[in-house]
């Protein structure tokens, strides 16, 4: 009986060994893929990190896993206080695993930040994400293009883009900080005080010499805006990247360039509380070149071409509205040559007019809402002022904008998600808003008339 038990146990042990053996090769491969092999010694590591990674050996993976589980659990429960510390430990347990850095930077800047109501709280988490990637991740992995891209993405998308409701705050605070750092839209490269250069390098990891190179190639950039930083970090990774990484970085550069061309000029007046970004028209030609270079380098990337086409189409409108007619014509000509379509065969004036209606349809939900609400307020305002004709005109315009916008959003699901509230509701809100601002009773009385 005992002998049988022994045999069974030996059998189980043998089976387990065999099983472990079958998993050995895939595991080794995965270790290689994720840079988990311990062969490569870590550079630039503080002694504590070097010690733990060596001392824990194979166990550090398990510990990192447990910490990670705890981090997700805490995040789910709304307890964010430990996340920075946990992310710090997890990344340092696996300092070579790029995915870990990328995930935690993104997680803090994106997932955690949006859980807060206050812009200061959100900004703090966006900065934690930036800090993790920029100050720690890149220190241990200076040759990993993925990390530069993740960092650039926070600047390009989270801060420069408008998906986050608080993006304006981020832009403002970042601009204040950069303004204090550079004393202007960009550092004075020729007469840079040593302590300022030191601060740029140590705190923000911005190398003035490299910044100047970026400036020469893509500038003039306003370094108070996040776009310049997205371009800076993507550009720094270009020599390290090849293949898909390279394509992604190219894309980041020209997309951000396009953004900067249309929104890259900052007019800021802290005293009046004014913070407005407008087109940086000087960048349009450089952006065109950036697109062209990227397309030439990556033939067959159709998404790049459609991005290019969209950029050119908007550029025509922007140049036109800024009365740069010659350049606008040149861009239209470019469009006609590269992406032949009947609509480009018209003259500049006619083309721009036909684009306006299309433009409304392509507006984002918020822009459209603002546009309709603003126009309606104009309407009520003029009504209060006694100019019924003007009021009628604005009312008409608002209705057509609303209709144009909703035309492409007829599907009830889409309408619920991205549609506008009913016109009557918006009208009522606009009326209330105007009424509040009015001083005289006479003007208020005029608003009691039926909808214009």
């Amino acid at each position: 009986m005992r002998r049988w038990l022994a045999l069974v146990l030996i059998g189980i042990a043998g089976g387990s060994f065999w099983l472990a053996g079958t998993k050995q090769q895939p595991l080794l491969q995965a270790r290689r893929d994720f840079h988990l092999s311990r062969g490569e010694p870590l550079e630039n590591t503080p002694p504590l990190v070097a010690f733990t990674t060596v001392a824990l050996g194979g166990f550090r993976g398990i510990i990192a896993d447990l910490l990670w589980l705890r981090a997700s659990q805490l995040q789910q429960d709304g307890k964010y206080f430990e996340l920075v510390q946990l992310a710090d430990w997890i990344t340092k347990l696996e300092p070579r695993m790029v995915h870990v850095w990328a995930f935690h930077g993104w997680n803090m800047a994106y997932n955690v930040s949006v859980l807060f109501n206050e812009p200061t709280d959100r900004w703090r988490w966006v900065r934690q994400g930036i800090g993790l990637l920029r100050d720690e991740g890149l220190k241990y992995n200076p040759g990993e293009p993925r990390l530069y891209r993740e960092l650039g993405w926070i600047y390009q998308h989270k801060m420069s883009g408008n998906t986050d409701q608080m993006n304006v705050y981020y832009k403002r605070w970042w601009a204040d900080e950069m303004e204090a750092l550079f004393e202007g839209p960009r550092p004075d490269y020729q007469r840079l005080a040593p302590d300022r250069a030191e601060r740029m390098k140590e705190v923000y990891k911005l190398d003035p010499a490299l910044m100047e190179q970026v400036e020469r190639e893509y500038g003039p950039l306003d370094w108070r805006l996040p776009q310049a930083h997205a371009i800076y970090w993507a550009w720094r990774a270009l020599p390290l990247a090849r293949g898909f990484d390279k394509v992604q970085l190219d894309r980041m550069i020209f997309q951000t360039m396009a953004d900067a061309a249309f929104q890259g000029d900052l007019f800021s007046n802290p005293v009046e509380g004014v913070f407005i970004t407008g087109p940086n028209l000087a960048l349009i030609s450089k952006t065109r070149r950036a697109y062209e270079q990227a397309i030439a380098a990556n033939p067959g990337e159709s998404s790049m071409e459609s991005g290019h086409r969209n950029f050119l189409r908007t550029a025509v409108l922007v140049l036109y509205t800024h009365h740069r007619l010659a350049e606008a014509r040149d861009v239209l000509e470019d469009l006609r040559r590269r992406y032949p379509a009947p609509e480009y065969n018209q003259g500049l004036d006619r083309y721009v007019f036909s684009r306006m209606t299309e433009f409304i349809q392509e507006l984002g939900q918020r822009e459209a809402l603002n546009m309709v609400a603003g126009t309606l307020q104009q309407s009520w305002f003029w009504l209060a002022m006694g100019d019924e004709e003007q009021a009628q005109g604005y009312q008409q315009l608002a209705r057509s904008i609303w209709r144009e916008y909703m035309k492409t959003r007829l599907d009830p699901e889409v309408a619920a998600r991205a549609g506008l509230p009913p016109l009557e509701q918006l009208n009522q809100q606009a009326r209330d808003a105007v009424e509040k601002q009015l001083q005289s009773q006479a003007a208020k009385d005029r608003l009691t008339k039926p909808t214009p």
Partner: protein
Amino acid sequence: MNKVFAIAGIAIRNAIRSRVVVVLLALLLIAIVALPLTIKGDGTLTGAVQVLLRYTLGAVTMILSIATLWAGCAAISLEVQERQVHLLVTKPVFRMQLWLGKWLGLLILNTVLLGLAGVASYTLLRWNLRQDDVADILVARRVVNPMPLDIAADARQIFEEQKRRGELPPGPPDQVLEAIQQSLRQQAYSVPSGLARRYVFPVKPTGVPLVIRYKFASSSTGKEQLACLWIAGSPDRADRFEKPEYAAPGGVHTVRIPPAMVDTNETLTVDVANVHPMPLTMVFAPDDGVQLLVQETSFEMNLVRCLLLELVKLAFLGALAVTIGSVFSLPVAAVTAGYALLLMNIGGYLQTLIGQKMIFSAGAQPGILDLLVHWIYVILYWLTKPFQQPSALEPLAAGELVSWTWLGTIFLWQVVVAGGAVAAIGVWAFNRRELGLPE
């Protein structure tokens, strides 16, 4: 009982004279002083305090847990190995007394060390915060859940109504009823745009501000904030408290409510209205979607209870270790106890593993091995579940009350029931053991 104390006294004296206590104290002090210097908070003062509390006390309990396991395992097994036990069991001492003495020695040492560590942590915390206003941070608030909805009665009513009209959907009646309840529950915690939902909390009149803590999901896939309005106080009052909020879904938010809003019938009525212009629904979690936090005792008393709870856990660990040490030799005992501690502390991890059916196969169907491993995890999980140790550090750091009731329950379970069972097994096995066996 004198014999038990004598044995405990020897254990303590040994620990002190062999410098174990000094080394432990040094380790604890390093943890308490050095950890706060290296730890990163989230950039807020509250966060810093929470992380500090959580990590220093966490490190303290971890060091003490490991030390307890080791010392507990060594307590009897080392004496067996060194044959000192020959002189004990040839004296008129029941083996239960021997077991109890060893356990008591550990417990006394743990009490002293944990007490010292607690005082040191608290002093350091206060010193670090000497210039800050901590009235809102160092708190101990009871978490009050809203009065439950009587969904069952409503569901029953709908069920009867449908039955009367002959509109009952097909299927077994209890499943139909369950489905009705399910949908009612879902409705109860969903607040569509333009509607409001009422919560009533049982709360005694108090002078300190009350805090509503809420958390919701949005029916939108996006993360945009929703506009909502919080109204507190009985609906017939003229001076109801109102607070508009623009809140992010998924986050945890708080609203302070003046204590005067508590009604004379010892309830607080809170309405939440979804006033978002877009047709989006707020969905509150049924169990912790909306909770009321009431300041109840001082932070210091909470800290004391928290430390007591940790001590209770150490008492159980000690019992476990002494029992294992009275059955096995030291290396075996230490490994076994370490494994037990690990299992008790990774309940959440095991649960995750149980949820994951595919461990080996990459295909669509779990293979035989997956099932086997899955069942091993399930068994391990259920075996260790009764002994899984809740941490009082989390609520302490989060400013939530560690109640006497909770402490009492944990004490009853971990020391009296589980500890007693472990002790009984230990004494039984120890009694059966022939201590004079040749090596």
